[in-house]
């Protein structure tokens, strides 16, 4: 039995300390994912991450060991993010985001360019691209996390990727 599996079993049995260790392992991934979804708003991302982990603790009995624990957490994080979007009634999930902003090529750092360009994508495209590339999940995992059909996720990835390419290439 792997260390993570043991920690998960203990957490499912109600061991808060084991859950604390899982939080320590996963916090960077979940907060990083949420920061990208929240277009770099670290305070909002951290609030959502806190809600994500507290919800995970309440629902840990429902965790099925089919996917990774990190993927399960990302699924909760995504639903928390969607709730926040609906609460704020801004930035529809499927629509492209704010198209104003600085020229993505003006920054020297390619990573900064990428973050700026990512911020201009629709939230669902940002999520799909981040899950499939930066976090290394399969399209199937991403579909499970986002609660979307596989084909829809694939098209979000393709469309988001092409939009990014255009933004990164346009002077």
């Amino acid at each position, binding site marked *: 039995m792997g260390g993570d599996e043991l920690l998960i079993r203990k957490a499912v049995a109600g061991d808060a300390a084991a859950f604390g260790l899982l939080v320590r392992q996963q916090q960077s991934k979940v907060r990083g*994912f949420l920061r990208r979804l929240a277009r770099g708003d670290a305070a909002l991302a951290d609030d959502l991450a806190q809600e994500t982990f507290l919800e995970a603790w309440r629902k840990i009995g429902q965790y099925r060991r089919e996917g990774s624990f990190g993927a399960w957490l990302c699924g909760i994080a995504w639903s928390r993010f969607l709730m926040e979007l609906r609460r704020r009634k801004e930035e529809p999930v499927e629509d492209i985001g704010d198209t104003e902003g600085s020229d993505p090529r003006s920054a020297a750092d*390619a990573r900064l360019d990428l973050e700026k360009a990512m911020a201009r994508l629709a939230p669902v495209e940002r999520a799909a691209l981040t899950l499939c590339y930066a976090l290394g999940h399969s399209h199937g995992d991403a579909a499970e996390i986002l609660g979307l059909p596989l084909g829809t996720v694939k098209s979000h990835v393709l469309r988001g990727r092409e939009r990014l390419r255009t933004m990164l290439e346009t002077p």
Partner: protein
Amino acid sequence: MTDEALDDLLSQPLADVADDGFSSRILAAVTAAEARRSRITIWATALGALCIAPFLPLREIGAIMTRTGPVLANSLAMSIAAAALILTFSLAQRLRE
């Protein structure tokens, strides 16, 4: 931009986010929530017991216990059952550790 360059850029791992007490805050919130939940459970159980206590046939239960208590205490089957319970509990404790 080539497909390869774009894929490389997209595949860069997300920047590490320093913990800075985040995990401790979550653990504190979880512990507080658990304490609150167990307080609520204790109070609800106590309240439920208080509500049904007047309706229990306590005198009859006492009489039955007086009659059957010595018989059960001297019963081999009960001794075996008690030993099995203790062993199961000890094993479960050790497995949890």
